C-alpha cells in the first residue's frame, strides 16, 4: 500500500485549562457549536482535503472520543485498507508504549505509519476550530521542496509573547523559533500543524532516541533540531478564522461567534462541510410558549421558554418561564421552569431544576459540569 500523505491527529491531550469540561473527556471530544465535537474540524478538514488515511492518537480519557471517531464513516474515512484508525497506548515485548509527547506519540506509532509508506505525514492537533485546505499546504511544501512546513497564523503583536513564534526570511523559510518570546521578532504563531517528509522525520525520531536528546515534542525538540541541522523548514501562513478553544472563556467566545450566520467559518457552506457523528433524534419542537431569537437549535430540543443568542445542542429541554441567554448548552441538558441561565456553559447531561440559576459574566463564564445537577426539586416531584 502506498499513500502520498498520511494524517496523524494528536488527540491525546487533556486540555486541563478547560477544568471540569475535560475531567472525563479528552479536549478534542469536548462538544462545540450544537452538534459537533472539537475534533470534527480537523477530521472534516482531512476529508475535504482528500486525505483519506488518518491515524487518531488518543491516550487521555478516550472512550467518548474513540466512539465518536469509530470507523470514520461520518467523515468518509472508512475506506478499505485505511481510513481512520484509533491509536492508543499498548504493550509489547519491549514493554509498555506510553506516549510522552507529541513527537514521541509519532515515534511509538512508526509501525502504523510505515504500513502506508507515505511520502509525507501531516501532523495536526484535534484541538482547534478552523477550516483549512491541507492540500494547498502540501502543494506549498512540494513547491518549496521543504523538509518540514509549519502552519503559522499571524497573531496580534500583543498576543505574540504567548505563542511559539516563527521568524522567517523573505522566502518564508523559518530561520528561528522562539518559544513564547518576551520581545517577539515576528507575529507568526505556530498552529501545531506540520507537514514532514516522512523518511526524514522517521530517521530523526529513531536516531535520536538513543542519543542524549530525546525527541519528545515537536515544538521543544524536533523543530529546534531541524533548524540546528539546517533542514529546509518553511512557514505556511493561514489567514482565515482559527480559534484555540483551550480555556472556558475562549470556548464560550468561539460558540458565541459561531451563532452569527455571517461568521467567517461559514458552517453552511456545502463545499466544505463539517461532518460529525450525530445521534438520531426527533426534530426540534418549539412549543406555544417558546421564543427563540438569534440562536442555533439542534435536533431533539424542546423549547417552552425563551432562548436568546445561545446554542442548544441535541435533546435539550427548556421549560416554561426559563430564560437562556448568551450561553452554550451541551446535549441532553434538562432545564426546568423559571430557570435563568446567562453567560454560561452547561455540560452534557446536566440538570437545572425549577428556579435554578447559572449566571456568569464577561471574563467569568459560569460552568456547570457534565451530569451536574442544581436548583430546586424537579417539576414532576
Amino acid at each position, binding site marked *: 500500500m502506498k499513500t502520498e500523505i498520511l494524517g496523524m491527529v494528536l488527540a491525546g491531550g487533556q486540555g486541563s485549562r478547560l477544568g471540569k469540561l475535560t475531567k472525563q473527556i479528552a479536549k478534542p471530544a469536548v462538544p462545540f457549536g450544537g452538534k459537533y465535537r472539537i475534533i470534527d474540524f480537523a477530521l472534516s478538514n482531512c476529508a475535504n482535503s482528500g486525505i483519506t488515511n488518518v491515524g487518531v492518537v488518543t491516550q487521555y480519557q478516550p472512550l467518548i472520543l474513540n466512539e465518536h471517531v469509530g470507523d470514520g464513516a461520518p467523515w468518509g474515512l472508512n475506506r478499505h485498507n485505511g481510513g481512520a484508525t484509533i491509536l492508543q497506548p499498548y504493550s509489547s515485548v519491549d514493554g509498555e508504549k506510553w506516549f510522552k509527547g507529541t513527537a514521541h506519540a509519532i515515534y511509538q506509532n512508526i509501525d502504523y505509519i510505515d504500513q502506508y509508506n507515505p511520502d509525507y505525514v501531516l501532523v495536526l492537533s484535534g484541538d482547534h476550530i478552523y477550516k483549512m485546505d491541507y492540500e494547498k499546504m502540501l502543494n506549498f511544501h512540494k513547491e518549496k521542496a521543504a523538509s518540514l512546513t509549519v502552519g503559522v497564523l499571524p497573531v496580534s503583536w500583543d498576543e505574540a509573547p504567548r505563542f511559539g513564534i516563527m521568524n522567517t526570511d523573505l522566502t518564508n523559510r523559518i530561520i528561528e523559533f522562539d518559544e513564547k518570546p518576551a520581545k517577539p521578532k515576528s507575529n507568526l504563531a505556530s498552529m501545531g500543524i506540520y507537514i514532514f517528509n516522512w523518511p526524514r522525520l522517521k530517521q530523526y525520531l529513531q536516531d535520536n532516541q538513543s542519543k542524549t536528546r530525546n525527541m519528545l515534542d515537536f515544538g521543544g525538540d524536533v523543530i529546534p533540531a531541524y533548524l540546528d541541522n539546517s533542514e529546509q523548514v518553511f512557514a505556511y501562513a493561514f489567514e482565515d478564522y482559527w480559534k484555540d478553544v483551550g480555556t472556558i472563556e475562549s470556548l464560550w467566545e468561539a460558540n458565541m461567534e459561531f451563532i452569527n450566520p455571517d461568521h467567517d467559518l461559514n*458552517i453552511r457552506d456545502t463545499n466544505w462541510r463539517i461532518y460529525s457523528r450525530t445521534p438520531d433524534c*426527533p426534530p*426540534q419542537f*418549539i412549543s406555544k410558549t417558546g421564543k427563540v*431569537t*438569534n440562536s442555533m437549535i439542534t*435536533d431533539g430540543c424542546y423549547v417552552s421558554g425563551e432562548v436568546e443568542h445561545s446554542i*442548544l445542542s441535541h435533546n435539550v429541554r427548556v421549560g416554561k418561564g426559563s430564560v437562556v441567554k448568551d450561553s452554550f448548552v451541551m446535549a441532553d441538558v434538562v432545564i426546568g421552569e423559571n430557570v435563568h441561565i446567562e453567560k454560561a456553559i452547561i455540560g452534557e447531561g446536566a440538570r437545572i431544576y425549577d428556579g435554578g440559576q447559572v449566571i456568569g459574566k464577561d471574563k467569568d463564564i459560569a460552568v456547570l459540569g457534565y451530569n451536574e445537577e442544581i436548583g430546586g426539586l424537579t417539576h414532576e416531584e
Partner: protein
Amino acid sequence: MRNKIAAILNLVEDSKDLRPLTQNRPVASLPFACRYRLIDFPFSALYNAEVNSAALFISESGHSLYDHIRSGANWGLDSPVGGGVFTHSQIELKTLRAERDEEFNITYFDNHRKYVQKSKADYVLLCGSNMLSNISLNAILQYHQEKNADITAAFKKVSRKALKKDTETFAYYFDGNEDDYLSKMEKMSEVPYEDKTVSLGMNYVIMGKEVFNRYLKKAEEGNSRIDGNTFLRYSLENGDKAYGYEYTGYLKSIEDIPSYFEANMEILEEKNFNALFYRNDPIITRPRHGAPTYYGPNAVVNNALIASDCEIYGKVENSLLYRQTKIREDTEVSCSIIMHGTKIGKNCYLKYVILDKNIKVGDNVHLEGTREKPLVFKKGDTIESGKVIREGSKI
C-alpha cells in the same frame, strides 16, 4: 435475544389519493415529521425488536426508497447473520390477479418462501408502511406466544369518524372482549359512518412459520397478493386461532392528502409527538449532515416542529419545516408543511399549504388553502414573486 422474526413488508400501497406527493415516490417514502419517511416507522419497529432481516416488495416507483434505504445498515438490516434487505422487481405486482403471468407468479411466491426459509426465523411478520405508528413487535410476539395463537393482528380502537368514508382499512371484531378470539373482519367502508368506536386493523400481522407457509400456499392457489389482512382472512375462513393485539399509541392511516395533512398537524400536539418519538424505542432514519437551525433576531416560532439546517427569519406557527428550508424576513407561515430544501422569500403569507421538496417561493407571495383542502405544490415548483393563490382560485 436471537432473531426470531422474518419481516415481509408489502410496500405496493395505493397512492393515487396522495398525488402529487406520490407522483415520483411510493407511500413508503413519503416525508413525515421534518426528517423521516413513512418507512422509517416499520423499519424502526424492526430495529427495536432486533429483527435483522426484512424482505421488501416494492413497485416500479421504488427508486426514492432505494436511495433512502441503501443497504439497510441504519436499521441494523445488513447484518451478515441471516440479514439483508431483499428486493424484487414488482412492476407486475399490481396486475398480479389480472394478467396471471405464470413465471412471474412463481417467482413472487418463491421469493417469499425462500426468504422465510433462509432467514431461519420462527415467526413471520407481515406489514405495510401507511399505518403510521410506533409499535413494539416484541410485545405482539409475546402476546402471540402467550395466547398460543395461530395468527395475531394488531389493532387500535378509534372512532369510525377518524377515518375517511371510503377507507381501504378493515375493522376487526372479537368474540367477547378484545382479549378474546378475533372472530370477524369487515371492510371499514361498510361500517356505518358515525361516532362509534371500532377496532381498526393495523395490517401488522404475525404468525408462526408453518402457518405462514400454509397460507402462502393458499395465496398461491388463489393467485392473491401476500398481505397481512389477506392472511388474517384465511385464518378466519380456516377457523384457526386468530387474536388481536391492542395497540394504544399514536396511529394514523395515511390514505389521502387530508389524512396526511392531519397526521402532520396532529404530531404538533405534544401528546402525539411524545407517543411517537419519546418512547423508549427510537425512530431511526438515514443520518444527514448539516448545521443546527438558525433563528434570526426577529424570528417568531411557536408550536412548530423544525428539522436542523434551516434558517428562519420570519414567523412560523403550527407548522413543520423540513431540513434546509429557509423562511425570510416578514414572512408568515402557519398550518403548513414545508419540505426539504424549499426556500420562501420575504413578506409572504402561507396558510394550509403543503410545499414538497426544493420549491422556490419568491417575495410577497400569498398562498392559502383550507384545513380540509390544503394547497399542495409539487417537488421543484417555482412560485413567482407577487403570486396570490387561494383555495378555489386557479393555480
